Protein backbone atom coordinates (compact mmCIF):
# COMPACT_ATOMS: atom_id res chain seq x y z
CA UNK A 1 0.00 0.00 0.00
CA UNK A 2 2.89 2.33 -0.68
CA UNK A 3 1.47 5.33 -2.46
CA UNK A 4 2.34 8.90 -3.17
CA UNK A 5 3.00 10.63 0.12
CA UNK A 6 1.19 13.78 -0.75
CA UNK A 7 -1.80 13.87 -3.10
CA UNK A 8 -4.30 15.78 -0.94
CA UNK A 9 -2.37 18.14 1.31
CA UNK A 10 -2.11 21.70 0.10
CA UNK A 11 0.94 22.39 2.25
CA UNK A 12 3.71 20.09 1.15
CA UNK A 13 5.28 19.87 4.61
CA UNK A 14 2.41 17.61 5.64
CA UNK A 15 2.15 13.89 5.23
CA UNK A 16 5.87 13.06 5.20
CA UNK A 17 5.76 10.68 8.14
CA UNK A 18 5.07 6.98 7.67
CA UNK A 19 3.10 5.24 10.40
CA UNK A 20 2.57 1.67 11.45
CA UNK A 21 -0.95 0.65 10.48
CA UNK A 22 -2.85 -2.53 11.26
CA UNK A 23 -5.18 -4.33 8.86
CA UNK A 24 -7.61 -7.23 9.14
CA UNK A 25 -7.77 -9.21 5.93
CA UNK A 26 -10.62 -11.47 4.80
CA UNK A 27 -8.56 -14.61 5.56
CA UNK A 28 -8.76 -13.70 9.23
CA UNK A 29 -5.22 -12.50 9.88
CA UNK A 30 -4.01 -9.24 11.32
CA UNK A 31 -1.21 -7.57 9.36
CA UNK A 32 1.13 -4.75 10.26
CA UNK A 33 2.30 -2.37 7.57
CA UNK A 34 4.44 0.72 7.64
CA UNK A 35 2.95 3.19 5.22
CA UNK A 36 1.29 6.48 4.57
CA UNK A 37 -2.29 7.19 5.57
CA UNK A 38 -4.93 6.60 2.94
CA UNK A 39 -6.99 9.30 1.33
CA UNK A 40 -9.95 9.52 3.78
CA UNK A 41 -7.69 10.38 6.72
CA UNK A 42 -5.91 13.01 4.68
CA UNK A 43 -9.19 14.58 3.65
CA UNK A 44 -10.34 15.01 7.24
CA UNK A 45 -6.95 16.31 8.35
CA UNK A 46 -6.93 18.83 5.53
CA UNK A 47 -10.42 19.87 6.62
CA UNK A 48 -9.16 20.63 10.12
CA UNK A 49 -6.14 22.54 8.84
CA UNK A 50 -8.32 24.57 6.48
CA UNK A 51 -10.47 25.55 9.43
CA UNK A 52 -7.46 26.57 11.51
CA UNK A 53 -6.02 28.65 8.66
CA UNK A 54 -9.38 30.33 8.20
CA UNK A 55 -9.61 31.15 11.89
CA UNK A 56 -6.09 32.60 11.91
CA UNK A 57 -6.85 34.78 8.88
CA UNK A 58 -10.14 35.96 10.40
CA UNK A 59 -8.38 36.83 13.64
CA UNK A 60 -5.73 38.80 11.71
CA UNK A 61 -8.38 40.81 9.91
CA UNK A 62 -10.17 41.51 13.18
CA UNK A 63 -6.98 42.73 14.82
CA UNK A 64 -6.08 44.94 11.86
CA UNK A 65 -9.53 46.53 11.89
CA UNK A 66 -9.25 47.15 15.62
CA UNK A 67 -12.02 44.83 16.77
CA UNK A 68 -9.77 42.50 18.74
CA UNK A 69 -6.41 42.57 20.46
CA UNK A 70 -3.27 40.98 18.97
CA UNK A 71 -3.57 38.32 21.64
CA UNK A 72 -6.45 36.80 19.64
CA UNK A 73 -4.22 36.41 16.61
CA UNK A 74 -1.40 34.74 18.54
CA UNK A 75 -3.88 32.52 20.35
CA UNK A 76 -5.39 31.26 17.09
CA UNK A 77 -1.94 30.92 15.59
CA UNK A 78 -0.93 28.52 18.33
CA UNK A 79 -4.19 26.56 17.77
CA UNK A 80 -5.41 27.29 21.28
CA UNK A 81 -8.80 28.39 22.58
CA UNK A 82 -9.24 30.80 25.55
CA UNK A 83 -9.45 27.89 28.00
CA UNK A 84 -6.21 26.43 26.69
CA UNK A 85 -4.48 29.78 26.76
CA UNK A 86 -5.63 30.42 30.30
CA UNK A 87 -4.09 27.12 31.40
CA UNK A 88 -0.92 27.67 29.39
CA UNK A 89 -0.28 31.17 30.74
CA UNK A 90 -1.64 30.64 34.23
CA UNK A 91 -4.10 33.54 33.96
CA UNK A 92 -7.77 33.26 34.94
CA UNK A 93 -10.22 32.44 32.17
CA UNK A 94 -12.32 35.60 32.57
CA UNK A 95 -9.19 37.72 32.46
CA UNK A 96 -8.09 36.08 29.20
CA UNK A 97 -11.54 36.79 27.74
CA UNK A 98 -11.15 40.46 28.66
CA UNK A 99 -7.60 40.67 27.34
CA UNK A 100 -8.89 39.59 23.94
CA UNK A 101 -10.56 43.02 23.69
CA UNK A 102 -8.32 45.93 22.62
CA UNK A 103 -9.41 48.30 25.39
CA UNK A 104 -8.46 45.86 28.13
CA UNK A 105 -5.36 44.70 26.28
CA UNK A 106 -3.95 48.25 26.30
CA UNK A 107 -4.06 48.42 30.09
CA UNK A 108 -2.65 44.96 30.73
CA UNK A 109 -0.01 44.72 33.44
CA UNK A 110 3.58 43.91 32.54
CA UNK A 111 3.39 40.71 34.56
CA UNK A 112 0.55 39.39 32.43
CA UNK A 113 2.34 40.44 29.25
CA UNK A 114 5.37 38.43 30.28
CA UNK A 115 3.22 35.42 31.12
CA UNK A 116 1.51 35.50 27.74
CA UNK A 117 4.78 36.00 25.89
CA UNK A 118 6.33 33.02 27.64
CA UNK A 119 3.31 30.79 27.05
CA UNK A 120 3.12 31.67 23.35
CA UNK A 121 6.90 31.49 22.88
CA UNK A 122 7.28 35.06 21.54
CA UNK A 123 8.74 38.32 22.87
CA UNK A 124 6.71 41.00 24.62
CA UNK A 125 7.29 43.43 21.70
CA UNK A 126 5.91 40.89 19.24
CA UNK A 127 2.84 40.41 21.39
CA UNK A 128 1.82 44.04 20.90
CA UNK A 129 1.40 43.91 17.13
CA UNK A 130 0.61 41.44 14.37
CA UNK A 131 2.87 40.93 11.38
Amino acid at each position, binding site marked *: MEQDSNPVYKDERYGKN*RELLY*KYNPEGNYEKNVGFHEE*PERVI*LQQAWDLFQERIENARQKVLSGKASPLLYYMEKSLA*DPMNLSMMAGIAFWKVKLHLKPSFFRHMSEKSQKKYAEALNITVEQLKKVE
Partner: protein
Amino acid sequence: MAQDKIILNYTHRQAGHCESGATSNLFNFYGYDVSEPMAFGIGNGLYFSYIPFLKLQFAPMISFRNFPNTVFHRSMKHLGVDAQVIKSFKTPKESMDALDRNLEKGIPTGCQVGCYNLTFFPPEYRMHYNMHNLVVFGKEDNLYHISDTVMETPQVLTWEDLARVRFAKGAFAPKGKMYWINHINGELNFKPAVKMGIQRTVHDMIKIPFWLIGAKGIHAMARDLKRWPGRYGNEKTSFYLGQILRMAEDFGTGGAGFRYIYGAFLKESGNLFINDELLEAADMMGKTANRWREFTYIGARNCKNRSKPEEDYGMLSDILHEIGNMEEQVYRKLDKIVL
Protein backbone atom coordinates in the same frame (compact mmCIF):
# COMPACT_ATOMS: atom_id res chain seq x y z
CA MET B 1 26.21 17.28 35.89
CA ALA B 2 28.15 14.39 34.45
CA GLN B 3 29.09 15.16 30.89
CA ASP B 4 29.78 11.63 29.75
CA LYS B 5 28.08 9.83 26.94
CA ILE B 6 25.51 7.20 27.82
CA ILE B 7 23.62 5.29 25.17
CA LEU B 8 21.78 2.18 26.30
CA ASN B 9 21.39 -0.85 24.10
CA TYR B 10 17.76 -0.11 23.39
CA THR B 11 15.99 -1.31 20.27
CA HIS B 12 13.60 1.15 18.70
CA ARG B 13 10.58 -0.54 17.14
CA GLN B 14 7.85 1.48 15.51
CA ALA B 15 4.38 0.90 16.92
CA GLY B 16 0.82 1.96 16.29
CA HIS B 17 0.10 3.44 19.69
CA CYS B 18 2.61 5.49 21.63
CA GLU B 19 2.15 4.16 25.15
CA SER B 20 1.71 0.45 24.47
CA GLY B 21 4.60 0.69 22.01
CA ALA B 22 6.77 2.21 24.73
CA THR B 23 5.70 -0.47 27.22
CA SER B 24 6.43 -3.26 24.77
CA ASN B 25 9.83 -1.77 23.92
CA LEU B 26 10.70 -1.48 27.63
CA PHE B 27 9.86 -5.18 28.10
CA ASN B 28 11.99 -5.95 25.07
CA PHE B 29 14.93 -4.13 26.66
CA TYR B 30 14.83 -6.54 29.61
CA GLY B 31 14.76 -9.52 27.27
CA TYR B 32 11.07 -10.40 27.39
CA ASP B 33 9.19 -10.53 24.14
CA VAL B 34 5.87 -8.76 24.74
CA SER B 35 4.31 -7.53 21.52
CA GLU B 36 2.53 -4.20 21.24
CA PRO B 37 -1.03 -5.63 21.02
CA MET B 38 -0.29 -7.84 24.04
CA ALA B 39 0.79 -4.83 26.13
CA PHE B 40 -2.26 -2.90 24.93
CA GLY B 41 -4.71 -5.69 25.79
CA ILE B 42 -3.24 -6.59 29.18
CA GLY B 43 -2.92 -2.93 30.06
CA ASN B 44 -6.59 -2.53 29.14
CA GLY B 45 -6.14 0.39 26.77
CA LEU B 46 -9.43 -0.02 24.91
CA TYR B 47 -12.15 2.41 25.87
CA PHE B 48 -14.81 4.59 24.43
CA SER B 49 -16.17 7.82 25.76
CA TYR B 50 -18.12 10.59 24.12
CA ILE B 51 -18.26 13.84 26.07
CA PRO B 52 -20.28 16.43 24.13
CA PHE B 53 -20.04 19.16 26.77
CA LEU B 54 -16.22 19.26 26.71
CA LYS B 55 -14.59 20.66 23.63
CA LEU B 56 -11.23 19.57 22.23
CA GLN B 57 -9.92 21.54 19.24
CA PHE B 58 -13.38 23.19 18.89
CA ALA B 59 -15.35 19.93 18.62
CA PRO B 60 -16.87 17.47 21.13
CA MET B 61 -14.36 15.30 22.91
CA ILE B 62 -14.32 11.68 21.81
CA SER B 63 -11.84 9.22 23.18
CA PHE B 64 -11.13 5.71 21.94
CA ARG B 65 -8.47 4.92 24.53
CA ASN B 66 -8.10 4.84 28.26
CA PHE B 67 -6.55 7.59 30.38
CA PRO B 68 -2.82 8.23 29.97
CA ASN B 69 -0.46 5.90 31.80
CA THR B 70 -3.18 3.26 32.28
CA VAL B 71 -1.56 0.90 29.80
CA PHE B 72 1.84 0.96 31.48
CA HIS B 73 0.54 0.87 35.03
CA ARG B 74 -2.03 -1.89 34.56
CA SER B 75 0.14 -4.11 32.38
CA MET B 76 2.84 -4.00 35.06
CA LYS B 77 0.31 -4.68 37.79
CA HIS B 78 -1.34 -7.56 35.95
CA LEU B 79 1.98 -9.18 35.03
CA GLY B 80 3.35 -8.65 38.54
CA VAL B 81 6.40 -6.66 37.51
CA ASP B 82 8.28 -4.31 39.82
CA ALA B 83 7.83 -0.92 38.15
CA GLN B 84 7.75 2.63 39.35
CA VAL B 85 5.82 5.71 38.34
CA ILE B 86 6.60 9.23 39.55
CA LYS B 87 3.51 11.30 38.96
CA SER B 88 4.81 14.82 39.24
CA PHE B 89 7.81 17.00 39.95
CA LYS B 90 7.91 20.52 41.25
CA THR B 91 10.45 22.00 38.85
CA PRO B 92 11.78 20.98 35.42
CA LYS B 93 15.34 20.90 36.80
CA GLU B 94 14.40 18.34 39.43
CA SER B 95 12.71 16.09 36.91
CA MET B 96 15.62 16.25 34.48
CA ASP B 97 18.07 15.39 37.26
CA ALA B 98 15.96 12.37 38.17
CA LEU B 99 16.03 11.36 34.51
CA ASP B 100 19.84 11.72 34.42
CA ARG B 101 20.24 9.56 37.52
CA ASN B 102 18.10 6.86 35.89
CA LEU B 103 20.16 6.92 32.71
CA GLU B 104 23.38 6.62 34.71
CA LYS B 105 21.96 3.52 36.38
CA GLY B 106 21.21 2.14 32.90
CA ILE B 107 17.42 2.33 33.04
CA PRO B 108 15.52 3.52 29.94
CA THR B 109 12.78 5.79 31.19
CA GLY B 110 9.38 6.63 29.76
CA CYS B 111 8.02 10.16 29.95
CA GLN B 112 4.64 11.72 29.35
CA VAL B 113 4.98 14.80 27.15
CA GLY B 114 2.92 17.39 25.30
CA CYS B 115 2.93 17.33 21.51
CA TYR B 116 2.86 21.00 20.68
CA ASN B 117 6.54 21.80 21.22
CA LEU B 118 8.07 18.50 20.10
CA THR B 119 10.58 19.71 17.53
CA PHE B 120 10.98 16.48 15.59
CA PHE B 121 7.26 16.03 14.96
CA PRO B 122 5.87 16.86 11.51
CA PRO B 123 3.70 20.00 11.69
CA GLU B 124 0.36 18.22 11.34
CA TYR B 125 0.92 16.33 14.63
CA ARG B 126 1.66 19.39 16.70
CA MET B 127 -1.61 20.00 18.51
CA HIS B 128 -2.26 20.82 22.15
CA TYR B 129 -2.36 17.21 23.17
CA ASN B 130 -0.61 16.31 26.41
CA MET B 131 -0.92 12.55 26.55
CA HIS B 132 1.93 11.51 24.30
CA ASN B 133 4.59 9.10 25.53
CA LEU B 134 8.21 8.57 24.62
CA VAL B 135 11.21 6.72 26.02
CA VAL B 136 14.56 8.38 26.78
CA PHE B 137 17.41 5.92 26.36
CA GLY B 138 20.59 7.94 26.20
CA LYS B 139 22.31 11.27 26.48
CA GLU B 140 25.32 13.03 25.05
CA ASP B 141 26.16 16.30 26.79
CA ASN B 142 23.09 18.42 26.08
CA LEU B 143 21.36 16.02 23.71
CA TYR B 144 18.94 13.31 24.74
CA HIS B 145 18.25 10.26 22.61
CA ILE B 146 14.54 9.65 22.27
CA SER B 147 12.63 6.65 21.05
CA ASP B 148 9.22 7.84 19.90
CA THR B 149 7.19 4.94 18.58
CA VAL B 150 5.25 7.13 16.15
CA MET B 151 8.45 7.92 14.25
CA GLU B 152 10.39 5.43 12.16
CA THR B 153 13.81 6.16 13.65
CA PRO B 154 15.14 7.32 17.04
CA GLN B 155 15.34 11.08 17.49
CA VAL B 156 17.28 13.60 19.57
CA LEU B 157 16.11 16.53 21.70
CA THR B 158 18.06 19.17 23.61
CA TRP B 159 17.78 19.59 27.38
CA GLU B 160 15.65 22.74 27.06
CA ASP B 161 13.25 21.21 24.55
CA LEU B 162 12.77 18.06 26.58
CA ALA B 163 12.18 20.06 29.76
CA ARG B 164 9.62 22.21 27.94
CA VAL B 165 7.60 19.32 26.54
CA ARG B 166 7.73 17.46 29.86
CA PHE B 167 6.23 20.50 31.55
CA ALA B 168 3.71 21.41 28.86
CA LYS B 169 0.75 23.30 30.25
CA GLY B 170 -2.94 22.77 29.61
CA ALA B 171 -5.49 20.03 30.15
CA PHE B 172 -3.96 16.77 31.48
CA ALA B 173 -0.61 18.49 32.02
CA PRO B 174 2.20 15.91 32.27
CA LYS B 175 4.10 17.71 35.07
CA GLY B 176 7.20 15.69 34.29
CA LYS B 177 5.60 12.30 34.86
CA MET B 178 8.02 9.45 34.27
CA TYR B 179 7.98 5.67 34.62
CA TRP B 180 10.35 2.75 34.35
CA ILE B 181 10.77 -0.96 35.11
CA ASN B 182 12.96 -1.77 38.12
CA HIS B 183 13.52 -5.45 37.48
CA ILE B 184 11.71 -8.57 36.32
CA ASN B 185 11.99 -11.89 38.11
CA GLY B 186 11.70 -15.16 36.24
CA GLU B 187 9.12 -15.92 33.56
CA LEU B 188 6.13 -13.73 32.90
CA ASN B 189 2.84 -15.45 33.61
CA PHE B 190 0.50 -14.38 30.81
CA LYS B 191 -2.63 -16.35 31.58
CA PRO B 192 -3.92 -14.50 34.68
CA ALA B 193 -2.76 -11.20 33.20
CA VAL B 194 -4.74 -11.69 30.00
CA LYS B 195 -7.74 -12.77 32.04
CA MET B 196 -7.59 -9.67 34.22
CA GLY B 197 -7.06 -7.42 31.23
CA ILE B 198 -10.08 -8.81 29.39
CA GLN B 199 -12.29 -8.66 32.48
CA ARG B 200 -11.43 -5.04 33.11
CA THR B 201 -12.04 -4.05 29.49
CA VAL B 202 -15.40 -5.83 29.45
CA HIS B 203 -16.31 -3.99 32.63
CA ASP B 204 -15.32 -0.64 31.15
CA MET B 205 -17.15 -1.18 27.90
CA ILE B 206 -20.52 -2.63 28.93
CA LYS B 207 -20.92 -2.67 32.69
CA ILE B 208 -20.54 0.99 33.63
CA PRO B 209 -24.05 2.39 34.16
CA PHE B 210 -23.43 5.69 32.39
CA TRP B 211 -24.79 6.46 28.94
CA LEU B 212 -21.72 8.16 27.46
CA ILE B 213 -19.14 5.46 28.17
CA GLY B 214 -18.50 2.18 26.39
CA ALA B 215 -20.84 0.60 23.84
CA LYS B 216 -23.64 2.83 25.17
CA GLY B 217 -21.53 5.85 24.30
CA ILE B 218 -21.38 4.78 20.65
CA HIS B 219 -25.18 4.68 20.54
CA ALA B 220 -25.37 8.08 22.23
CA MET B 221 -22.99 9.51 19.62
CA ALA B 222 -25.04 7.95 16.82
CA ARG B 223 -28.21 9.58 18.16
CA ASP B 224 -26.49 12.96 18.40
CA LEU B 225 -24.97 12.69 14.93
CA LYS B 226 -28.48 12.59 13.49
CA ARG B 227 -29.45 15.74 15.38
CA TRP B 228 -26.35 17.83 14.60
CA PRO B 229 -27.37 19.06 11.08
CA GLY B 230 -30.62 20.55 12.39
CA ARG B 231 -28.96 22.03 15.43
CA TYR B 232 -25.65 23.40 14.14
CA GLY B 233 -25.95 23.52 10.33
CA ASN B 234 -24.08 21.55 7.72
CA GLU B 235 -20.64 23.10 7.98
CA LYS B 236 -20.24 22.56 11.68
CA THR B 237 -21.67 19.06 11.50
CA SER B 238 -19.13 18.19 8.86
CA PHE B 239 -16.34 19.46 11.14
CA TYR B 240 -17.70 17.53 14.12
CA LEU B 241 -17.93 14.37 12.03
CA GLY B 242 -14.35 15.04 10.94
CA GLN B 243 -13.37 15.16 14.61
CA ILE B 244 -14.84 11.70 15.23
CA LEU B 245 -12.88 10.34 12.30
CA ARG B 246 -9.68 12.16 13.30
CA MET B 247 -9.81 10.71 16.77
CA ALA B 248 -10.45 7.26 15.33
CA GLU B 249 -7.91 7.15 12.55
CA ASP B 250 -5.10 9.64 12.87
CA PHE B 251 -2.12 9.94 15.18
CA GLY B 252 -1.09 6.61 16.49
CA THR B 253 -4.23 4.57 16.75
CA GLY B 254 -3.09 1.78 14.45
CA GLY B 255 -6.35 2.31 12.55
CA ALA B 256 -10.04 2.13 13.45
CA GLY B 257 -9.68 3.62 16.91
CA PHE B 258 -7.46 0.88 18.39
CA ARG B 259 -9.93 -1.86 17.40
CA TYR B 260 -7.35 -3.50 15.14
CA ILE B 261 -4.76 -3.58 17.91
CA TYR B 262 -7.25 -5.10 20.34
CA GLY B 263 -8.28 -7.70 17.78
CA ALA B 264 -4.63 -8.59 17.25
CA PHE B 265 -4.31 -9.02 21.02
CA LEU B 266 -7.29 -11.42 21.12
CA LYS B 267 -5.85 -13.36 18.20
CA GLU B 268 -2.42 -13.62 19.78
CA SER B 269 -3.70 -14.74 23.16
CA GLY B 270 -6.08 -17.18 21.45
CA ASN B 271 -3.11 -18.75 19.68
CA LEU B 272 -1.07 -18.74 22.88
CA PHE B 273 -3.65 -20.57 25.01
CA ILE B 274 -5.20 -22.54 22.10
CA ASN B 275 -8.65 -21.19 22.87
CA ASP B 276 -11.18 -21.28 19.99
CA GLU B 277 -13.58 -18.84 21.60
CA LEU B 278 -10.92 -16.16 21.85
CA LEU B 279 -10.08 -16.69 18.17
CA GLU B 280 -13.76 -16.32 17.32
CA ALA B 281 -13.93 -13.09 19.34
CA ALA B 282 -10.81 -11.88 17.50
CA ASP B 283 -12.59 -12.50 14.21
CA MET B 284 -15.65 -10.56 15.39
CA MET B 285 -13.44 -7.70 16.55
CA GLY B 286 -11.69 -7.62 13.17
CA LYS B 287 -15.02 -7.37 11.39
CA THR B 288 -16.11 -4.56 13.70
CA ALA B 289 -12.86 -2.74 12.98
CA ASN B 290 -13.43 -3.15 9.25
CA ARG B 291 -16.86 -1.64 9.75
CA TRP B 292 -15.25 1.36 11.48
CA ARG B 293 -13.03 1.73 8.41
CA GLU B 294 -16.09 1.75 6.15
CA PHE B 295 -17.58 4.41 8.39
CA THR B 296 -14.43 6.48 7.86
CA TYR B 297 -14.57 6.10 4.09
CA ILE B 298 -18.19 7.19 3.87
CA GLY B 299 -17.74 9.92 6.47
CA ALA B 300 -14.73 11.39 4.68
CA ARG B 301 -16.74 11.53 1.44
CA ASN B 302 -19.37 13.37 3.42
CA CYS B 303 -16.82 15.85 4.76
CA LYS B 304 -15.68 16.55 1.22
CA ASN B 305 -19.27 17.04 0.01
CA ARG B 306 -18.77 14.29 -2.50
CA SER B 307 -21.24 11.83 -1.02
CA LYS B 308 -24.09 10.16 -2.83
CA PRO B 309 -27.57 11.32 -1.79
CA GLU B 310 -28.34 8.17 0.24
CA GLU B 311 -25.12 8.55 2.28
CA ASP B 312 -26.38 11.29 4.56
CA TYR B 313 -26.00 11.65 8.30
CA GLY B 314 -28.97 9.33 8.88
CA MET B 315 -27.11 6.51 7.19
CA LEU B 316 -23.88 7.24 9.10
CA SER B 317 -25.87 7.20 12.31
CA ASP B 318 -27.33 3.80 11.38
CA ILE B 319 -23.83 2.46 10.75
CA LEU B 320 -22.72 3.70 14.17
CA HIS B 321 -25.69 1.99 15.82
CA GLU B 322 -24.73 -1.21 14.01
CA ILE B 323 -21.10 -0.87 15.16
CA GLY B 324 -22.32 -0.35 18.72
CA ASN B 325 -24.32 -3.55 18.58
CA MET B 326 -21.43 -5.48 17.04
CA GLU B 327 -19.02 -4.31 19.72
CA GLU B 328 -21.44 -5.15 22.47
CA GLN B 329 -21.73 -8.70 21.14
CA VAL B 330 -17.93 -9.05 21.23
CA TYR B 331 -17.76 -7.97 24.87
CA ARG B 332 -20.71 -10.18 25.87
CA LYS B 333 -18.83 -13.07 24.28
CA LEU B 334 -15.58 -12.19 26.03
CA ASP B 335 -17.44 -11.94 29.32
CA LYS B 336 -18.40 -15.63 29.14
CA ILE B 337 -14.98 -16.98 28.18
CA VAL B 338 -13.33 -19.08 30.87
CA LEU B 339 -9.55 -19.06 30.64
